[in-house]
């Protein structure tokens, strides 16, 4: 090897190391800002604890706001009075403990915008004779010292000095009521309801209509206006998108009782699969799932209290995946179709089929479409409809490719759902929509496994609620307002970017823009690194499995050839090799993923096994030819010395065969590497799929594919070099 080659190899290795290193760094570089929040957790339903967890309306609002701000929260316990000291001192960033906004407090702390309005109520034993505001005035009233309720009681009581009992805690106040030491209590509404929920012998009388309306706010240090502003803007956002109301509703629907779990302590995780190549319903915005479906799913999970885990898969595979329980729900613009082997939710979107053509196309009526070359996405209802019009149909895996077909003139038109068409036209101004089909309108629904009626019902209930309260419309409007372009999720903290490039720069600037778009924007290069990592893992593990199993198969076959022994195992081995070599790798991969390991979702492991099993068959035959090439006398010499067949094979024959077949095995390794490029079909982000995803996001095929090709080539060059060296070493050995 000359100097130049060395340098090339060195550069490639350095490239790979940097790639790996960057991936490692980016995946571990999670330094989010942490905000310290102090609370006095004795004020259900606003602040309390369940076990170790801080729970309550305040706590959950803080969580939601901080999540929107992109910060992590650390809760700390303190007494109510002390919080008012430690926040100004900067020992805590935020105080959250049902602080009424008062001018006095505003002297020493900053308040957030109010998040809760509250008034005073009366709590009394269930058999009380109190009925109206007037009745309260002469009663013995118990209150917690220092509260608004205490002040108000003093104000309305006819004999405040004897009739108002000031207690240090709410526990004592309640004991007063239960033991008859007081006739009633005056307290904040939500707290009162919470107390009555915990003590059935008490009831709430909402009769203090004249009581002052108070507002709760969070507190910050006086000089931390920056945090106050950020907090307020995120607070406004969760008010706007309904999360705040959802949180309050959650506690209210549980009667404000002190054992209500946090809104964010989920019932479980809902694993949702989608095929994010279908804007505006699902697509990736950077590394974030966005689109109408995605946001409806988010709203559903918020409402149903599920933690959401999104995964991507191909459209066709999601139905299988749902059916096998690899995920709970599929959300990928599924048209409700009784033929599909799945349970459908109620529809959340209605759609009709339209024709999309290039500007200047001669297609004008439905009759013009007949017999034309139509491009469609496999498995969509557009595809079914297209079949009734023409038998000249191009089936593509993703809409990205369908658009390219139309743009490049490979197809005369595409048939697609109207919302998608609008999104496409919004991005590609030289396309236009023709609303000329006679297809029946269709309905989109989410899919569940047949038999998972329980989850389906739960989603339907929640969907009905979200439709009722306008959440669904808000989400759809949000996308419609932006012309169904690819924008960040409705719930995202990312800003909508103006993607309209000013086509100013020349050729090179243009190229740079594309490069920037493909790899640097939203850190898209991470898809390549993630893909590279997975491709290498799968190739390496498959190679190990293939070599080990292949060598074993070869030994069995050779011993049988030589002696006629091991007939049964040999038959199995031969059948195995025949089947594996006689069917496409792709089919084997799908078979192993969806049939053999249907219950597992560790797709990288499954892919490694599938590729390993496949490789083993080829390795076995390679090894066998290598074994045949070893002179027969070697075996006889071994046997004459008393060695068994197996020992002779493993210690004498195989090592010699190995040298014979090293070049062939090297080739096997190289083709294995390249074969792993189909791993994307079972939802793995391998190198090829990584490029695919970028292509789907940027509609640019050039850079992602070229870069990926270059990486494959680089790995192959390194591998070939290593194999050559190994070969040389083996050859010089004896």
């Amino acid at each position, binding site marked *: 090897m000359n100097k130049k080659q060395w340098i090339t190899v060195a550069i490639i290795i350095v490239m790979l190391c940097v790639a790996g290193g960057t991936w490692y760094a980016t995946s571990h570089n999670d330094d989010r800002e942490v905000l310290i929040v102090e609370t006095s957790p004795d004020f259900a339903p606003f602040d309390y604890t369940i076990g170790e967890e801080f729970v309550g309306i305040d706590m959950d609002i803080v969580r939601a706001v901080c999540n929107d701000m992109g910060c992590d929260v650390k809760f700390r316990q303190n007494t109510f009075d002390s919080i008012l000291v430690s926040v100004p001192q900067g020992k805590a960033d935020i105080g959250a403990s049902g602080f009424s906004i008062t001018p006095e407090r505003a002297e020493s702390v900053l308040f957030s915008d109010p998040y809760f309005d509250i008034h005073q109520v009366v709590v009394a034993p269930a058999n009380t004779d109190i009925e109206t505001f007037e009745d309260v005035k002469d009663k013995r009233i118990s209150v917690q010292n220092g509260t608004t309720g205490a002040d108000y009681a003093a104000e309305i009581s006819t004999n405040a000095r004897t009739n108002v009992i000031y207690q240090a805690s709410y526990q004592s106040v309640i004991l007063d009521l239960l033991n008859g030491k007081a006739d009633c209590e005056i307290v904040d509404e939500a707290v009162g309801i919470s107390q009555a929920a915990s003590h059935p012998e008490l009831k709430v009388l909402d009769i203090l209509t004249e009581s002052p309306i108070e507002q709760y706010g969070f507190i910050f240090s006086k000089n931390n206006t920056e945090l106050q502003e950020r907090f307020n803007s995120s607070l406004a956002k969760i008010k706007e998108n309904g999360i705040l109301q959802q949180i309050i509703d959650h506690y209210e629907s549980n009667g404000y009782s002190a054992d209500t779990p946090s809104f964010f302590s989920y019932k479980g995780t809902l694993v949702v699969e989608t095929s994010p190549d279908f804007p505006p319903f699902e697509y990736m915005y950077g590394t974030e799932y966005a689109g109408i479906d995605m946001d409806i799913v988010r709203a559903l999970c918020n409402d149903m209290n599920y933690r959401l885990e999104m995964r991507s898969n191909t459209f066709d595979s999601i139905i299988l995946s749902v059916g096998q329980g690899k995920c709970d729900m599929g959300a990928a613009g599924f048209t409700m179709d009784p033929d599909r082997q799945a349970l459908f939710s109620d529809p959340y979107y209605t759609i009709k089929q339209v024709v999309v053509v290039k500007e200047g196309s001669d297609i004008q009526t439905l009759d013009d479409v007949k017999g034309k070359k139509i491009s469609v996405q496999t498995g969509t209802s557009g595809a079914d409809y297209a079949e009734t019009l023409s038998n000249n149909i191009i089936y593509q895996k993703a809409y990205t490719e369908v658009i390219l077909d139309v743009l490049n003139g490979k197809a005369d038109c595409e048939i697609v759902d109207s919302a998608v068409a609008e999104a496409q036209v919004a991005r590609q101004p030289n396309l236009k929509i023709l609303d000329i089909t006679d297809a029946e309108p269709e309905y989109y629904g989410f899919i569940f496994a047949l038999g998972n009626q329980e989850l389906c019902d739960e989603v339907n209930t929640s969907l009905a609620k979200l439709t009722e309260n306008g959440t669904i419309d808000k989400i759809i409007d949000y996308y419609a307002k932006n012309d169904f372009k690819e924008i960040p999720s409705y719930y995202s903290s990312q800003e909508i970017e103006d993607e309209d490039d000013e086509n100013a720069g020349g050729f090179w600037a243009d190229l740079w823009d594309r490069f920037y778009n493909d790899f640097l924007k939203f850190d898209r290069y991470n898809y390549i690194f993630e893909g590279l990592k997975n491709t290498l893992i799968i190739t390496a593990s498959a190679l190990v499995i293939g070599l080990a199993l292949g060598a074993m198969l070869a030994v069995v076959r050779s011993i049988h050839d030589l002696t006629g022994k091991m007939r049964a195992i040999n038959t199995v081995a031969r059948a195995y090799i025949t089947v594996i070599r006689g069917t496409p790798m792709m089919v084997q991969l799908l078979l192993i993923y969806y049939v053999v390991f249907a219950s597992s979702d560790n797709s990288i492991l499954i892919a490694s096994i599938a590729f390993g099993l496949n490789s083993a068959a080829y390795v076995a035959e390679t090894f066998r030819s290598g074994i045949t090439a070893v*002179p027969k*006398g*070697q075996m*006889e*010499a*071994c*046997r*004459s*010395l*008393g*060695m*068994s067949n197996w*020992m002779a094979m493993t*210690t*004498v024959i195989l*090592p*010699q065969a190995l*040298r014979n077949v090293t070049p062939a095995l090297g080739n096997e390794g190289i083709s294995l590497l390249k074969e792993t490029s189909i791993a994307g079909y079972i939802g793995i982000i391998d190198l090829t799929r990584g490029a695919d995803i970028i292509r789907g996001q940027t509609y640019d095929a050039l850079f992602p594919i070229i870069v990926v090709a270059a990486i494959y080539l680089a790995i192959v060059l390194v591998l070939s070099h290593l194999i050559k060296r190994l070969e040389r070493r083996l050859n010089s*050995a*004896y």
Partner: protein
Amino acid sequence: MPTDGEVLIEVRNLEKSFGDHVVLKDINLDVHRGEVISIIGPSGCGKSTFLRSINLLEKPTAGSIVFEGTDILAPDTDVDVLRRRIGMVFQNFNLFPHKTVKENIMLAPVKLKIMTEEDASTKADELLTRIGLLDKADQYPSRLSGGQQQRVAIARALAMNPDVMLFDEPTSALDPEMVGEVLNIIKNLADFGMTMVVVTHEMGFAREVSDRVLFFNDGIIAEENTPDEFFGNPQNERLKDFLSKIL
């Protein structure tokens, strides 16, 4: 002449055929401890097949072979164990090319756990000294001449401490100037009392070293005699013919 010693190998009515082609018919032979038997005959007469039958590299079609009291054709006999006591040297040496000379010698005893690594090493050095190739111990076989390789092959067989040695035309593949060094080793073994069956074309060697010489022809032992009688006064017509051609 130790023909009255203990019978080591007893061959009775041995037959071997490949399909319709009969190679050996009704062979009977006793090999006594310490005896050296040479087998000569035209090519294709079955002499190599007979030799290879003794350690079951060829499986006889009929008859019996009893080795040290054990019927080696019995189904429950562990052939691998018997083979450890029957050394074999091949025409083409069949050394293991990926092992050094010393590793070739040590491989079987160590792998079969007959000797420890150290014992086998000592034994190998001893054998290499005996064949005069101690300086080649760490060479790969490909660096050795044919004669040297065959000497190593003999040492490899001897490392198992066999009770009998089978030689299958040990000098046929050698250049003429190397034949001597191999035959000397075999003679040396004979002097030490090793029981041996040698298939050979070296008439001088057969005459000098053997206790008995057999003439194989058409799958039978056509003549069997002491070397002096065999070569000095052959009876069988085919043997006479054969000897006249090669002497």
